[in-house]
């Protein structure tokens, strides 16, 4: 199973990605998907601008995906991350994990998102609703803690 990793400016279709992942494997019993959307922070934001490190973004997500594939018996794994200007309500990131049983799919998707947030070289900058350019979003300690919990022996 080779994870599919894509870094792209354009939007993605969750249904189409899920169908592509499951279409030629009838032994899949569970598919878990997570989509991260741009929110407007109660009207404060006009958009988020996502900067990335081309090359490393793909490589780093692929490394995390390979770790997930080693840790859980998966039938398929997809990670898509967008860059550029993304408006509230639009999709930013997609993770899909497929396996025979639900537990592995849930955990692998959760793991992939936690590590993607702390290791994939992307940076968000706010564009404010009043038309001005806001600041860079600061990394959250919560995200580090979320990634850290996978380090514990399970």
């Amino acid at each position, binding site marked *: 199973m080779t994870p599919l990793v894509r870094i792209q400016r354009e939007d993605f279709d969750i249904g189409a990605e899920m169908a592509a992942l499951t279409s030629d494997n009838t032994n899949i019993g569970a598919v878990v998907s997570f989509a991260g959307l741009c929110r407007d922070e109660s009207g404060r934001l006009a958009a988020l601008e996502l900067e990335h490190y081309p090359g*490393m973004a793909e490589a780093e997500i692929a490394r995390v995906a390979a770790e997930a594939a080693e840790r859980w018996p998966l039938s398929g794994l997809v990670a898509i991350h967008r860059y550029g200007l993304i408006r509230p309500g639009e999709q930013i990131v997609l993770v899909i994990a497929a396996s025979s049983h639900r537990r592995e799919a849930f955990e692998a998707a959760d793991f992939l998102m936690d590590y993607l947030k702390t290791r994939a070289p992307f940076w*968000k900058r706010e564009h404010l609703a009043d038309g001005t350019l806001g600041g860079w979003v600061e*990394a959250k300690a919560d995200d580090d803690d979320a990634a850290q919990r996978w380090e514990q022996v399970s």
Partner: protein
Amino acid sequence: MTMATTEPASLKLVYFAWVRERVGLTDETVTPPAGTATIADLVRWLKSRGEGYELAFENESIVRAAIDQTHAKPATTIAGAREIAFFPPMTGG
């Protein structure tokens, strides 16, 4: 076999997000002085190159680095590196 040259090799540096803004460049090619062995050494030298660099690295423990597109720590050796990136903690996802 000949020994690897002790001449410092030229190195591509790339910057992202607010590190890029403070340095004022997206990338540059530099030749660090002899004895620049680790990421921390490189940062120390960069900070001596001007106000923008000083500001970008004013809190060294915050700025992250990658060597040839793999995460690196301050103590990581830069020998043989082609491209070194500096950037803030990541906020994707």
